[in-house]
């Protein structure tokens, strides 16, 4: 199947008082219709900016997309006119954000905010748009949708607001739904419900999903493909089962180790990755991860590792990804950790 979305070498920079921030540095990936891509990384790894860049929503003039292509159904979003981009936003590609508390406008009724894109993109009347908004709220599981549509956001609970955000994003039946940390700001119990809802909506509408999160656990269950980002670059990318099962990058290992294990009764020890994510103004020379990498060697400090295909076919950006001995060594490490 042809890719619905193909991103090639996307790079975005921010000019700040202290210097230039390379928020996204040459990121490439593809998304097929109806599939789910998980984008994973610590905060500040450039995941959100990647998404905003695809929507051309990077705040100018501080932020600027400096290179690459974002091909949506073959057309480069980065070369589109302002008008074409607007026609696409909210209509073909929709987005939901991390904090549903602040992402809804406090002074407009929920129903109206959902209907807004229908009026805009589908040319609906206010009345029709409102009726459709009620249907959508009902679909995302808001009880008494017709009454609740007349409420203001602050009258909704956090989970309900995120449901409303999802309804808003799905209003125009988009090809792609970008969910930027959709559960981070929510209670743990609500998180699962929202994830479930997103998957249910995907089944129902067939929309492709890009889910951005710092939580590997979130994507493990639902993503077909996973992209791991670090310091604005992708470090590992491929089918979910390979990235998780046959991971070849120490950073991904670190992420996996810092994950609570749901699959065993054993209380596995959580191992956080040591050190801080780097400043994106002075990205460490060579492999950006080397200051925190327990396996770093001379080459890691001097050369940027290329993103190369591994045996399993997924991509990894570590100098030693192709080294079988290195991998075996790691397997032992992991076992040790698991045994402790």
């Amino acid at each position, binding site marked *: 199947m042809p890719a619905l979305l193909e991103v090639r070498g996307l790079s975005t920079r921010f000019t700040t008082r202290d210097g230039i921030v390379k928020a996204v540095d040459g990121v490439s990936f593809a998304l097929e219709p109806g599939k789910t891509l998980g984008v994973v990384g610590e905060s500040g790894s450039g995941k959100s900016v990647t998404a*905003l860049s695809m*929507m051309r*929503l990077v705040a100018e003039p501080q932020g600027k997309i400096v290179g690459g292509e974002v091909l949506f159904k073959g057309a480069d979003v980065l070369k589109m006119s302002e008008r074409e981009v*607007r*026609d*696409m*936003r*909210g*209509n073909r590609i*929709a*987005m939901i*954000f991390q*904090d549903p508390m*602040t*992402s*809804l*406008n*406090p*002074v*407009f009724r929920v129903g109206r905010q959902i209907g*807004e*894109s229908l009026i*805009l*993109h589908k040319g609906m009347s206010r009345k029709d748009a409102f009726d459709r908004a009620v249907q959508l709220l009902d679909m995302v599981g808001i009880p008494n949708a017709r009454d609740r549509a007349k*409420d*203001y956001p*602050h*009258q909704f609970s956090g989970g309900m607001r995120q449901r409303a*955000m999802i309804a*808003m994003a799905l209003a125009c039946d988009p090809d792609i739904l970008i969910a930027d940390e959709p559960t981070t700001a929510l209670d743990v119990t609500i998180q699962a419900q929202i994830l479930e809802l997103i998957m249910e909506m995907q089944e129902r509408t067939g929309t492709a999903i890009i889910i951005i999160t710092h939580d590997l656990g979130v994507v493990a269950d639902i993503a077909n493909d996973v992209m791991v980002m670090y310091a604005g670059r992708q470090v590992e990318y491929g089918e979910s089962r390979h990235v998780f099962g046959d991971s070849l990058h120490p950073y991904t290992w670190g992420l996996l180790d810092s994950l609570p294990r749901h699959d065993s009764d054993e209380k596995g020890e959580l191992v956080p990755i040591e050190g801080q994510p780097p400043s994106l103004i002075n990205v460490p020379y060579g492999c950006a991860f080397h200051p925190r990498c327990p396996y770093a060697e001379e080459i890691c400090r001097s050369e940027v590792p290329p993103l190369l295909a591994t045996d399993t076919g997924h991509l990894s950006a570590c100098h030693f990804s192709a080294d079988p001995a290195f991998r075996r060594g790691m397997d032992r490490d992991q076992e040790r950790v698991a045994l402790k």
Partner: protein
Amino acid sequence: MLKYTVRRIFQMIPVFIGVTLILFILRAPGVLPGDPVRMITGERAIPDALREQIVKKHALDQPLHRQYVIYIGNLLQGDLGESYQRGRPVLDIFADKFPNTLRLAFAGIIVEIIIGLTAGIISAVRQYSFLDVLVTLSTSILVSVPVFWLGMLFQIFFGIKLKEWTGGAVHLPISQMSSAEFPDWAHLILPAITLASVSTAYVARIMRSQMLEAMGQDYIRTALAKGLTRRAVTFRHGLKNALIPVVTFVGIDFGVMMGGAILTETVFSWPGVGREIFLAVGQRDWPIVMGGVIIIVFLVMIINLIVDLSYALLDPRIRYGGDAE
């Protein structure tokens, strides 16, 4: 909403008591180094018999708390005393001045809204542009200008110099009595701009910062992600949020203007409450001065209450309770 209204009115009670207490203290004997009788009669010699009579009437020989009760009773009945020099009740004197002050303050508010909001919005939308710098700089200067001086400059420039330079073709009326050649509203132009000058600068500043703050919020990004035009996002989603605090400021300013009008009215010989107070100051006719102050103070309190209530109408977070930030 009803609950909110009731709560607001209840919250006003301590302020009301405080305000009347201060007004009372200002004329109560023995509290401040002033002669209460002097505050009631103005500064002129009075026969002892009359003095006696005044002390009796205002219960000045009674304990303070009794005096306070009597004082409040009089206030609530609209009895602000009498101008002993003109022999008229103070309330009467102000009755026909009041509409003029109201009219002037109203015109001032219109100036403030039109110029202040526009300047603030332009400044925010074009942040760091030449216009933004211009607005920021002129607001700094404007808050430092004494309004009465500004009024005088306006009169010199628009009333006289402009007339000289254009051979009498173009000029503006400089006071209400100046001439019949102008339509009624034209007399309001200069006083209204003068009265509104400082407030306009503040409104522009607040509008700018509120707008910038609103435009940095997450819901703006949501609106952009929907595919709305930047203009629609700015003026629908941004402006509506930014306006709420600004409208409150403007509302409260209406009261501030009524109080501050004394300077503008004095400069333009505008026959309002403020000018009456000014004239009374010159004659040391304290009952009129205090009466005028009291009228304005109560008016300001009422305006502030109305503003508070309308704030709730504007902001659904307050109207429907909930966790407003």
